[in-house]
């Protein structure tokens, strides 16, 4: 397809879509009076509900159903796929890695984001300093993976061979030997996690910085007059005030981390014991053609997200009630 054809198809699609919305608005416009409200609501909601039902609810239900079937998706095998996830050695490594990702990433990213937000708060060049940390959020996970793969790049430790990866070069400058950062398990997972932290710290910083700025000045002032140390200020004034925001940031990053796929796929392809549930889902579904296990892994992701969301909603309720 040529570029012109692609854009033509795009404009046709937008045209069809505009026509559909136009028809909806036309009919909605002809319905008058408060009694017609119900019909207007129906027309306005119909396209969204239709898409969600067909594109989200039905497929999710179908996948849950499929997770009780074998690789080809034909024979019912009960909970065997789930048993595989929790017993086979490969799958247990996947689970271990996923736990590592979800435990480490949110806390470190939030800690760095919070530290930085406090440090640059009210400083000169604050918005510029923030943009530096925030910029990785605009970069795709694939792009970020390539950026970091280059940092981790390894060249054999031989005379005349120079390191081109920054991390190994620093190690050499310090008198050490270059390492294959992405090969040695389980440390390689930590080096992948670092990429996610690098991306998410900006998100944590932005939200927490706004929360810090929302702390009433008189509270800070009163603490200062009491002679509170900077650490005391953080511990007894800042942290309690921004607690709801911290919870939201932790849970949001946690959910995002649970579904991380691009980084693992781009950097190691899940080799060297680095696979995680979301990556394993893809491999099993599309490479190993094990539909049942793939579906079970997808359902597992779904199930793991729920407690985080419930915790988040509860915390929000609690902070609103106060």
């Amino acid at each position, binding site marked *: 397809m040529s*570029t012109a054809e*692609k854009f033509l198809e795009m404009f046709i699609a*937008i045209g069809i*879509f505009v026509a559909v919305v136009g028809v909806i608005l036309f009919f*909605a*416009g002809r319905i008058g009076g408060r009694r017609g*409200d119900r019909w*207007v609501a129906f027309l306005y*909601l119909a396209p*969204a*509900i239709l*898409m969600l039902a*067909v*594109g*989200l609810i*039905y*497929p*999710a239900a179908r996948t*849950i159903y499929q997770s009780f079937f074998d690789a080809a998706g034909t024979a019912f095998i009960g909970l065997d796929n789930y048993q595989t996830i929790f017993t086979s050695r490969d799958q247990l490594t996947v689970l271990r890695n996923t736990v590592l990702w979800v435990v480490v990433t949110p806390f470190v990213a939030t800690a*760095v984001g919070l530290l930085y937000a406090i*440090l640059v708060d*009210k*400083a000169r060049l*604050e918005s510029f*300093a923030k943009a*530096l940390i925030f*910029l990785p959020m*605009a*970069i*795709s996970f*694939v*792009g970020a*993976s*390539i*950026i970091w793969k*280059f940092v981790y*790049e390894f060249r054999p430790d031989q005379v005349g061979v120079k390191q081109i*990866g*920054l991390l190994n070069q620093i190690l050499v400058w310090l008198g050490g030997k270059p390492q294959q950062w992405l090969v040695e398990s389980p440390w390689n997972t930590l080096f992948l996690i670092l990429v996610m932290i690098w991306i998410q710290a900006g*998100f944590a910083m932005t*939200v927490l910085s*706004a929360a810090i*700025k929302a702390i009433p*000045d008189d509270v800070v002032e009163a603490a*200062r*007059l009491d002679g509170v*140390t*900077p650490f005391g200020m953080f511990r007894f004034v800042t942290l309690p005030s921004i607690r709801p925001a911290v919870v*939201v940031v932790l849970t*949001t990053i946690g*959910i995002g981390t649970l579904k991380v*796929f*691009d980084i693992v796929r781009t950097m190691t392809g899940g080799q060297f014991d680095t696979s995680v549930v*979301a990556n394993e889902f893809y491999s099993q579904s599309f490479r190993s053609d094990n*539909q049942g296990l*793939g579906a079970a892994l*997808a*359902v597992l*992701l*779904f199930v793991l997200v729920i407690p985080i969301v419930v915790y988040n909603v509860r915390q929000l309720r609690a902070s609103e009630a106060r």
Partner: protein
Amino acid sequence: MSTTSAPLTSTPPIAPGAPAATKAKRKLTSPWASLIAVVIAVLWTLPTFGLAISSLRPERQIKTTGWWTFFTDPQVTLDNYREVLDVENGEGLGSFFVNSFVITIPSVLIPLCLASLAAYAFAWIRFRGRDLLFIVIFALQIVPIQVTLIPLLTLYVDAGIAGQFWTLWLSHSTFALPLAIFLLHNFMKEIPAGLLEAARVDGAGHVQIFFKVLLPLLTPALAAFGIFQFLWVWNDLLVALTFAGGGPDTAPITVALANLSGTRGTAWHLLSAGAFVSIIVPVAIFLLLQRYFVRGLLAGGLKG
């Protein structure tokens, strides 16, 4: 959203009664604080900077020396970009780049329009079952897209549109709806009811109210979500990989880049240039519209 424009108050002078120890401590923390901030800032920018420098260095240089030698031996070339974009002798990333635009533009416009309509209905029209329906849609945010992929693929194959742009437009639009409806609903609820009531008394129907009263007020919210969705779709790998295949007809640049990284993992002259071709658009959008983006982030993050 007063949080983003909070007034910058200058640090008040230390009270005369403060103990000397605290005073000393505060003076000490400041340079340390600056140092730590600078270290974090450097750590966060250096990796990108290194790859950016590399993308401009000759292939031989990249493969034999570190990018930091550029400062002692600067050699600049655009060959890497030429090779990575060239269709005949290179990787032909150009057509994937075009695909990214073709995929992203409708995938931003469609959910924005549909979500505004739905959000309007939820915020300003009274009907039975409204709250329940809204909660259901809100709850759908937690469904991971992984759960939907294979059945959706089957549906697309049955419909005869597998491998076409349509699959990506429809998928991205659907996945965006729960969050979009939720966010726009929140913004719409903040508009004073009196404004709508006044328009209604003047004889305006739902369509006129939507276009003449709400839409102008909603522009910041629409922009915020629009940027969100743009970055999300442009940077997406999973959905594109599943539905678009890997060919230059429909696959976006992220897929091309991921494949390049898989097949030519050490061709750093191509990877660095390719990465920057893919990064340039979202970073430009982000820098130009940062204000809206931050606003969307705060609305989504703090209320979600």
